[in-house]
């Protein structure tokens, strides 16, 4: 009896923790890879025609190619050359894939 009630209480408490964790919805969007959420500070979604183009929904290959060309200096830039150098090819690919999937 005593053991049973302790067990019950214990399992209830662990259930409470589990239920609380479940109350947090699984990420609606996939988890953003490192660096990806910073971009919209300048490249805001839905600002087509703006001086700085949006990246959300843009094909990932375009973003990867642009970042590579900024890094190597093949593509002229004001600030993106300085930023692109902070990311590896692999990181850029992950960011580009995520950005391409954003509404």
């Amino acid at each position, binding site marked *: 009896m005593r053991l049973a009630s302790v067990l019950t209480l214990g399992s209830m408490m662990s*259930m409470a923790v589990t239920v609380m964790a479940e109350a947090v919805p699984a990420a609606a969007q996939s988890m953003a890879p490192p660096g990806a959420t910073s971009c919209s500070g*300048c490249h805001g979604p839905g*600002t087509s025609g703006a001086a700085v183009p949006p990246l959300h929904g843009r094909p990932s290959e375009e973003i990867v190619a642009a970042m590579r060309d900024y890094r190597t200096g093949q593509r002229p830039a004001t600030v993106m050359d300085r930023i692109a150098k902070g990311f590896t090819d692999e990181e850029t690919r992950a960011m580009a894939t995520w950005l391409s999937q954003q509404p």
Partner: protein
Amino acid sequence: MSQALTRRMLLKTAAVGAAAAFSHRTAAQASPRVVVVGGGFGGTTCARELKRKGLAVTLVEASAVYTACPFSNAVLAGLRSIEAQQFKLDAVEKGGINIVRQRAVRIDSQTRRVVLEDGSLLDYDRLVLSPGIDIRFDALPGYDEAAAATMPHAWKAGEQTILLRRQLEAMDDGGTFVMVAPANPFRCPPGPYERASLIAHYLKTYKPRSKLLILDAKDSFSKQRLFQAAWQDLYPNMIEWVSLSSGGKVIEVDARTRTLVTDFGRHAGDVVNVIPPQRAGQIAQAAGVADRTGWCPIDPVTFESRLQPNIHVIGDASIAGGMPKSAFSANAQGKVCAAAVASLLRGETPTEPKLINTCYSLVAPDYGISVAGVYSPRNGVLTDVEGAGGTSPADAPTSFRTQEAVYAEAWFQTITSEVYG
């Protein structure tokens, strides 16, 4: 074991069981409570990002209107209206965020409660503080709140910005504008020098016999080479910068005579702008998340306070390693912090972030310069990624400067629409 004891135990167990079942039920019904304090760039960004992740969020902000600091130097120079700097939380509220229009006065980290000024309480599972800065009216002898009415700091945009603008407008041609610049760290490292530039632009245009003196508590400053080259080019003989080692550190002010005292002498100005030392906003001090420096040490992955569990600090108030205290940083941090908070509430381990900062400064309306950086956690501190970042090139053509001025304006439009639109 007697019968009576057994019965008592049984009753007790039943009561505990009921209590457990109750807390189980409330936990199941209510999602975790996240409270964000501060409706500036950091806090509002974080609240919206948390909401996007499906969390119930309460945002505590007493002001009905937020006046943005970036571009407020253009207001001082008469290039922009203060209204262009002002934003409301209406769209944020429509987006489903519960907004509490009060000041948070105290945090009880033991019971996880925010105490509001009317005495009511907000429970939280995770708390995000984005309080910005407080001006330290105890740091520079003679510079208290009353002195700020005579010698505005204008380092929190709003009435102070308007006051300094009026003083500039009233100044005669041939007058002297004196700025006092603080030691590091402070909000917006290139800000004083952008301000000097745009005020010089105003004076050159309307009061060309005037002078501008900067008394600095530092020997170097952000984008220094670019600023000084532009000053020589655009405003020759108008701006004088006195560094720390040349006697620039102001040790006392006299508001009545608008006089600034250094170890080497006294300087009087017709208009005096004192940018004093700062610290993390009051609620950070009250919550016990600020250290002896007045700023808030944080974990670089989650932005959780190093001093109090379950409390995260973002934006200017935080000690974010290499990241400067800027609106761009606060916005980037708000998004990373929201992701970390959501992960922690799910019982997951937050992933190591990378963050970007870009700060534009206007040296003239059509002349922009920038500094950028990429940051990642290293040895517990947000650290510049080597080989990345830096300032605009020193030898760029005019078209480059014009382009950066266009990007500066575009950045402001984009970030304010992401945060408040």
